[in-house]
């Protein structure tokens, strides 16, 4: 049994070896043999279960007057162990489009890179940039075709195209939603609370960045699987720029500085007779 990798194919055939009189010139889809087990369905189910709880992260993105604000934490956890505090969860697909990572790191990185390739090919073939709608649809169709096979991807595609700012949520169950405000990951309910209460369409870039940073901070405060550094990016008409990357521990003390406590009674040395 072989998996179908037609989603990975580039348009040019990779091998010429199969061309012959009997062949119509199309090479086989690249594939590899699956592991030999007595219970393949159980193996597949177990690998899906292993990946499922792994959306331990907080990412958010929202559209406002000046473009799209994208923010994420940087912690990677495996159960109770923090494996890294410095994971890049905002992936630069191309100079005017960003993707966020939640779920399996390898899945997100690989498929975003693949999406970047497809976007560039579209640009070369059509002499114009691909829209955010088109890019998100490409990714959603690929993820839909791998549905049920254990991919774990919860991503937002944010960009600026001819129609202005665009934001889509795409996940490995095949869902794709167009919207103005999303948060994905285990810390997302906490982030939504801060985001919803502070959101206004008319914000300056600085105000929006502060809202995004604050929402990530509050999510990392309450969610054990989120932490590290709160990165904030802005996507404007000329592309994306990284605005800040602040350690959430330091953010905590800048938002809630330690007041010196009023001492009611000082202890004094006991007088030894």
């Amino acid at each position, binding site marked *: 049994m072989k998996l179908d990798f037609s989603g990975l194919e580039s348009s040019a055939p990779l091998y010429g070896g199969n061309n012959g009189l009997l062949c119509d010139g199309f090479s086989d889809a690249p594939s590899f043999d699956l592991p030999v087990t007595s219970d393949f369905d159980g193996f597949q189910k177990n690998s899906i279960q292993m990946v499922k709880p792994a959306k331990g992260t907080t990412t958010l993105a929202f559209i406002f007057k000046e473009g799209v604000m994208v923010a994420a934490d940087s912690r990677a956890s495996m159960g109770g162990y923090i494996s890294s505090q410095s994971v890049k969860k905002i992936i630069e697909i191309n100079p005017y489009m960003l993707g966020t990572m939640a779920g399996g790191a390898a899945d997100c990185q690989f498929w975003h890179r693949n999406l970047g390739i497809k976007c560039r090919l579209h640009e070369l073939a059509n002499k114009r940039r691909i829209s955010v709608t088109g890019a998100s649809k490409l990714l*959603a169709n690929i993820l*839909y075709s791998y549905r049920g096979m254990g991919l774990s991807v919860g991503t937002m595609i944010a960009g600026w195209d001819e129609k202005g700012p665009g934001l889509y949520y795409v996940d490995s169950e*095949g869902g*794709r*939603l167009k919207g103005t405000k999303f948060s994905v990951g285990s810390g997302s309910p906490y982030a939504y609370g801060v985001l919803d209460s502070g959101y206004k369409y008319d914000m300056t870039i600085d105000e929006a960045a502060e809202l995004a940073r604050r929402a990530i901070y509050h999510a990392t405060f309450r969610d054990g699987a989120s932490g590290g550094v709160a990165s904030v990016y802005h996507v404007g008409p000329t592309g994306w720029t990284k605005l800040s990357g602040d350690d959430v521990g330091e953010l905590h003390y800048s938002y809630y500085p330690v007041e010196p406590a009023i001492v009611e009674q000082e202890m004094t040395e006991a007088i030894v007779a």
Partner: protein
Amino acid sequence: MECVFGMVGKGFALVVADTSAVNSILVHKSNEDKIMVLDSHKLMGASGEAGDRAQFTEYVQKNVALYQYRNGIPLTTKAAANFMRGELATALRKNPYMVNIVLAGHDKETGPSLYFIDYIATLHKVDKAAFGYGSYFALSMMDRHYHPNMTVDEAVKLADQCIEEIRSRLVVAPQNFVIKIVDKDGAREHSWRRTTKD
């Protein structure tokens, strides 16, 4: 938690759907339009798994359009319903689509019609249909108050009663609903019933 229901009136058919896009306990969006305009005189309200819903309904929409380009005439509602059921049935024992559909259409010769299409490829031509947890409340409301040849106002009033019942009795009721209508002048959005602004 998704609610889709519909009914046939005098010269028109109505489809009502909730507009929430939910992921376990999180509401990602509360203005997601789940009633697709299949062609000028057909409406398709769909509920089910996220990816399947969008992919299957778009697949059907494009195939219906292709038929019209190839043959110069649009499909009848009955033909579209049978096409959909055939696709669901073929996929059922390989890679099933988990989508439930209420198809409403208006044909010049036969007037308005409503079809109930299940995720296991059941097909029924009906006067009223409902899917989801909301169906427990909407079906009995419609059974009680529906009568053939209702006017648009009567049907919308019945739809409102169903929505009120869902809102008050369903434990996690959807926030907003959209009502769409199809009659001899075509398929169009009728109105929204909102409790939240998005």
